[in-house]
């Protein structure tokens, strides 16, 4: 042999003046054939139960010596099913390969390590993976070329993991991962992963349609988009997220970190398109459909349009469980002196449904004018020696039963020109609608708290967890300490279901009045008849304006300010409600003598307060 192999491919370097007569054979076998496989040749390499090593071979004047382990090939097609992780060893000399790891695994998947001779390898190939690898002077490394359509007018139709042929073997994964931020001296941000469909092409004659971005999870699985802790977003001019084959679409923001520090969950933001142009149109509406039927629309003005009923606990009227929270109803009087130490019954003296009590000295309770959009307020005027004042309302079982076992929100407007602490306390009755007296309450405390108030009327609110046992009626009491002077003002008191303090529930005056009259009302008596003699009587049903909570107590007759008083031939025992059986069903008028007998212009207070 009178030639030596080249450094990388072992091609023949013929010594000058040698190989006379066989020079052409050496070139054919040692150079031409090898150049052919080194540039375009593919070698099928079966890797199954053992590692495989390819080595450079060299042609001679008599043979190419190219075989199944010749390393000079350009393309290596890996076949066979590996029974364990395997290594393909290649010459430790400058060379690049295109490796198509088309082999599989039995019981795997098992990785295939590509290593230079004498090395253990620095990377692996997964089953089905294709890669360009090159020797870097030490070992083989994987070159990951960018896949880009720039300058290539050809569709890249798929990057697809391999589907194994072995039963029960998982398909190979395809991962596209942006680069991690640097963490050597300061934390860098991770690289963004961007999937962008092509924009529509435009011509003078018209424009095309932009491409869609499609992300599809395997059947039965979720399509997840989540940053850590960055946001996940899907946005495009005309793109859509579409579930296939009846699948659901769930958009879930990231949870807060599960760590020792408190962290918030991520927001989900849906942004409609903005209007553009020299004369902008209307911003896009947020539309929710069921099938092809529109169910809800929020237009660019923020107005919501619902096709059918709205089922939400806290948005609309009659959410306030208190009656007369706005202090507009005052059937009894607009001002009254509250006697220190008096009963709750005596405390129902001004605005309806709210009782007032005090200790130490008398206070004045009055319905006063509000300011701005508030028409009325309840004002307590303190006095020397006052030690405590309370304002409370008892809510009937029938109107609070559903609050049991839920969260309710108490809200109230308060000002106090003297004191800065107002305590609220919520109770439930021990038995249905029976709360007891101030001296002997029969109620169980639910919760209590305080509002720090000022002389400026301000809205305060708090959440109350109502126990499941609280099906018997609920009472809320606001108290202050020594209101020895100044005024304490409250209004817009609301107790509503849910954990959000919503706007005050203003109800029509007549409706609110009727609600209050279930507990207190003035009953007018206007009767007349022709008596046959002394002691003759006329009975009539008590003319209630609305049905009362229970059989009411009746106060002494008094002049009805709305009707002129006229009395003729009335009996000495006067005119009173008569309790018939268990209901106050009758009122009776008695005559002094024969002849016309009538009483007009009188009324009686009927109270069925709690």
């Amino acid at each position, binding site marked *: 042999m009178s030639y030596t192999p080249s450094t990388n491919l072992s091609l023949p370097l013929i010594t000058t003046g040698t190989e006379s007569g066989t020079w052409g054979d050496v070139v054919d076998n040692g150079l031409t054939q090898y150049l052919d496989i080194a540039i375009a040749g593919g070698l099928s390499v079966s890797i199954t139960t053992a590692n495989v090593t390819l080595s450079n071979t060299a042609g001679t004047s008599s043979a190419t010596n190219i075989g199944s382990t010749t390393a000079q090939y350009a393309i290596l097609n890996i076949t066979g099913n590996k029974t364990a992780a395997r290594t393909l060893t290649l010459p430790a000399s400058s060379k690049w390969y295109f490796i198509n790891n088309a082999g599989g695994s039995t019981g795997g998947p098992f990785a295939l390590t590509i290593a230079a001779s004498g090395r253990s390898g620095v990377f692996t190939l997964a089953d089905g993976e294709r890669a360009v690898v090159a020797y870097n002077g030490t070992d083989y490394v994987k070159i990951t070329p960018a896949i880009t359509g720039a300058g290539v007018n050809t569709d890249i139709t798929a990057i697809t993991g391999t589907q194994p042929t072995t039963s029960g073997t998982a398909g190979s994964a395809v991962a596209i991962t942006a680069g991690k931020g640097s963490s050597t001296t300061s934390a860098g941000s991770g690289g963004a992963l961007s999937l962008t469909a092509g924009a529509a092409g435009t011509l003078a004659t018209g424009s095309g349609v932009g491409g869609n971005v499609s992300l599809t999870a395997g059947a039965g699985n979720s399509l997840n988009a989540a940053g850590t802790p960055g946001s996940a977003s899907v946005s495009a001019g005309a793109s859509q997220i579409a579930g296939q084959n009846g699948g659901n679409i769930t958009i879930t923001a990231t949870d807060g970190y599960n760590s020792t520090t408190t962290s918030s969950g991520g927001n989900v933001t849906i942004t409609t398109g903005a209007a553009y142009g020299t004369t902008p149109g209307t911003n896009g509406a947020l539309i929710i459909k069921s099938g092809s039927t529109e169910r809800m629309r929020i237009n660019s003005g923020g107005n919501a349009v619902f096709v059918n009923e709205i089922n939400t606990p806290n948005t609309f009227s009659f959410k306030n469980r208190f009656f007369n929270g706005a202090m507009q109803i005052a059937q009894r009087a607009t001002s009254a002196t509250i006697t220190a130490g008096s009963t709750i019954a005596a405390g129902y003296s001004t605005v309806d449904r709210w009782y007032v009590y005090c200790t130490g000295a008398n206070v004045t309770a009055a319905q006063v004018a509000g300011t701005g959009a508030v028409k009325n307020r309840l004002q307590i005027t303190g006095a020397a020696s006052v030690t405590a004042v309370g304002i409370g309302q008892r809510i009937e079982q029938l109107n609070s039963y559903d609050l049991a076992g839920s969260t309710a929100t108490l809200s109230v407007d308060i000002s106090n020109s003297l004191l800065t602490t107002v305590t609220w306390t919520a109770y439930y009755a021990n038995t249905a609608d029976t709360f007891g007296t101030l001296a002997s309450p029969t109620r169980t405390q639910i919760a209590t708290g305080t509002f720090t108030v000022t002389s400026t009327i301000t809205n305060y609110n708090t959440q109350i967890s109502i126990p499941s046992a609280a099906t018997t009626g609920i009472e809320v009491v606001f108290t202050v300490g020594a209101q020895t002077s100044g005024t304490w003002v409250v209004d817009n008191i609301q107790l509503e279901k849910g954990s959000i303090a919503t706007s005050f529930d203003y109800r029509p005056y007549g409706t609110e009045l009727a609600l209050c009259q279930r507990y207190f009302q003035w009953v007018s008596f206007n009767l007349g008849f022709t008596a046959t003699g002394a002691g003759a009587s006329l009975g009539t049903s008590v003319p209630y304006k609305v049905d009362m909570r229970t059989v009411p107590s*009746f*106060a002494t007759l008094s002049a009805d300010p709305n009707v002129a008083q006229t009395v003729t031939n009335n009996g000495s025992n006067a005119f009173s409600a008569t309790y018939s059986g268990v209901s106050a069903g009758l009122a009776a008028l008695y005559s002094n003598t024969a002849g016309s007998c009538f009483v007009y212009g009188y009324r009686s207070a009927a109270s069925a307060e709690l």
Partner: protein
Amino acid sequence: MYKLISYSGEEPKAVRKYVTEDKTQWWDIPMNPANTDYQEYFRWLEGGNTPLPADNVSA
């Protein structure tokens, strides 16, 4: 101060609670356990008190 009220000699179905010392103002309270005034009267009775007897009011 409470006083029973009876109609035509029947068992009292109400009790009158005087709210002024001159007894010119009162509340007539039905003997109904759901009425809170009656509940208060009942506790007053449980405290060992006794109401004034009823006048027989015609009805």
